[in-house]
């Protein structure tokens, strides 16, 4: 398996990697580098070295999952590189090969697929009041709890059209439009991509001996959604010096 060749099939990778001079400006500006043991400069030099084993190690690492994709690095790089684009390509490849389950942060892709990923196809929205439970979002405060408990009256007050036919805020997305989204997902590969995330997560749950089923409320979901080893600001996950 030649991972570099696979990465080079991704436009984001070729757009993101010109020739890095290792100045470190991206690391200076990076919000993730400030709070995690993360250095986008090292990610770029690793892929630039073209060492297949090092790239495989990267695909299995925690390091590729820290970036918040703010893309501040794109603005700042004096050579036109974008480490954030390289990260996007690495994350896609990590999931295609099933490597994402080998890291704590990578395993979280299952929770994202089960929430935002499925919301898109079921509702036509990335987020929706019905799918954003207050107990999973304590940071939203009592005002969100109030909104959800009084959602018909609250959205109606602001000329919303919650779950109803026609135009307007939070309207019900018609089945024909959801069907078109689903067809696009199938034809462009995200349908299969979701299946890989699901299947590899099931395997990982079995390996970790954590209950798993097709529902969102399984123990593996709860584990990957909430577990934090609190070791991401130190060197314990960075034995390869990423």
């Amino acid at each position, binding site marked *: 398996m030649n991972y570099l060749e696979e990465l080079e099939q991704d436009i984001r990778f070729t757009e993101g990697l010109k020739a890095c001079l290792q100045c470190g400006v991206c690391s200076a500006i990076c919000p993730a580098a400030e709070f995690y043991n993360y250095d986008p400069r090292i990610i770029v030099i690793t892929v630039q070295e073209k060492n297949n084993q090092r790239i495989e190690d990267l695909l299995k690492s925690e390091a590729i999952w820290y970036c918040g994709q703010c893309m501040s690095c794109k603005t700042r790089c004096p050579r036109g590189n974008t480490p954030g684009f390289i990260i996007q390509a690495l994350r896609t490849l990590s999931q295609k090969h099933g490597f994402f389950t080998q890291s704590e942060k990578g395993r979280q892709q299952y929770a994202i697929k089960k929430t935002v990923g499925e919301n898109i196809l079921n509702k036509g929205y990335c987020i929706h009041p019905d799918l954003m439970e207050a107990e999973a979002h304590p940071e939203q405060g009592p005002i969100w709890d109030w909104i959800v408990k009084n959602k018909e009256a609250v959205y109606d007050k602001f000329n919303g059209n919650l779950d109803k036919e026609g135009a307007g805020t939070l309207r019900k997305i018609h089945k024909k439009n959801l069907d*078109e989204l689903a067809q696009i997902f199938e034809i462009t590969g995200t349908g299969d991509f979701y299946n890989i995330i699901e299947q590899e997560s099931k395997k990982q749950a079995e390996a970790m001996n954590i209950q798993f089923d097709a529902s969102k409320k399984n123990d593996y979901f709860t584990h990957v959604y909430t577990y934090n080893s609190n070791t991401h600001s130190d060197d314990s996950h960075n034995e390869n010096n990423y």
Partner: protein
Amino acid sequence: MYILIIAIHILMILIMKTITKKQSWNSYQKEIANDNLYYARSCIRQNFFPASEHMFLHILQKELGKNVFDDPNHTTCTGIGYHADVVLFDTIQTVIARHFALMTEAGLEHMAISCVTSFGLYTEVLHTWEHYPEQLEKIRDFLYKATKKEFNLPKSIAHTSDVIYSLRDEIAQKAQHTLINKHTGKPLRAVEHIGCHYAKMFPSKGVGGAEFPQVLAGMIESWGGEVVDYPERRHCCGFGFRNYLVQANRGYSMSNSKKKFESMEVYKPDFILTNCPGCSMFMDKWQYTIAEIDGKTYDSYGKGIPVLTYEELTGLVLGYNPWDLGLQMHQVQSESLLDKMGISYDPHLKYTDKHGNQLPKPVSPLHLTQT
């Protein structure tokens, strides 16, 4: 003579710097269509700031007589899923192509996009197709196979704040309230937050670029306020996609917002004005969370710094009732700002339905004063 030469030299440097800055600013002007628009809604804005989207349409259609099409067939662009790496690049390109097809079917050529994440992605997709024409053909083929739809490329795309920016002087002429502190007679002090994906990826597509963004600053200044510069003005709000979506990662998101709050606190802003719906929500909710965790607020009165969307601010300037603008959907309350602007409001109508019937009041946080 020697002093004169030095003085002339310094003067020339200053003139050159001024010219350079002006040229830099000029290179980041863009054409903004503000009529006959296809409206692309935002997932986050619809959930958290529904009145803002309504107000944008209302102001353009009713106040200013513009044609804006609100299409029931529009869906999410999938941007949050894309930036959280569960949606593939080909997929989001095809979903955006579908939106262009809907615009084409409506006989329109210009898009106004309500979400900064979406705006960044529409921009990125158009940039990709311009530089990789074979990619555009592939996506046309995908879209046709999936939906039998075809599309024209838009003549222009704008973030909805660009549209308000382009109409700011017209709005100023209709203003019922200005950004002047009624108690002191001085301009209100605003910090603005543009949102990373507005111009950091493609600076030429944002008004003022990534370094001197003017889209919100222009509104604030046109309506009488003063823009406060502060060290972390350009720092990310901390959304970070997977760093918020997964509960275990939210420390990243809050820490980045905290960094901004600490940086702006010493400048004592009267309010925060935001461009991106996600940033609006995070800068509001992380103030609440930080207050709950350690009792800290970033104003002097335990109330927090009010966070407004630009549609909410536009509505206040035009004289709309604050409770019709949805300000009660924020966790940090905005009465302190309303008082400074001299806007009267009835506290009994804050938590009512459309017909004026009282709704149960939300629970008050422990530390964030709610009036």
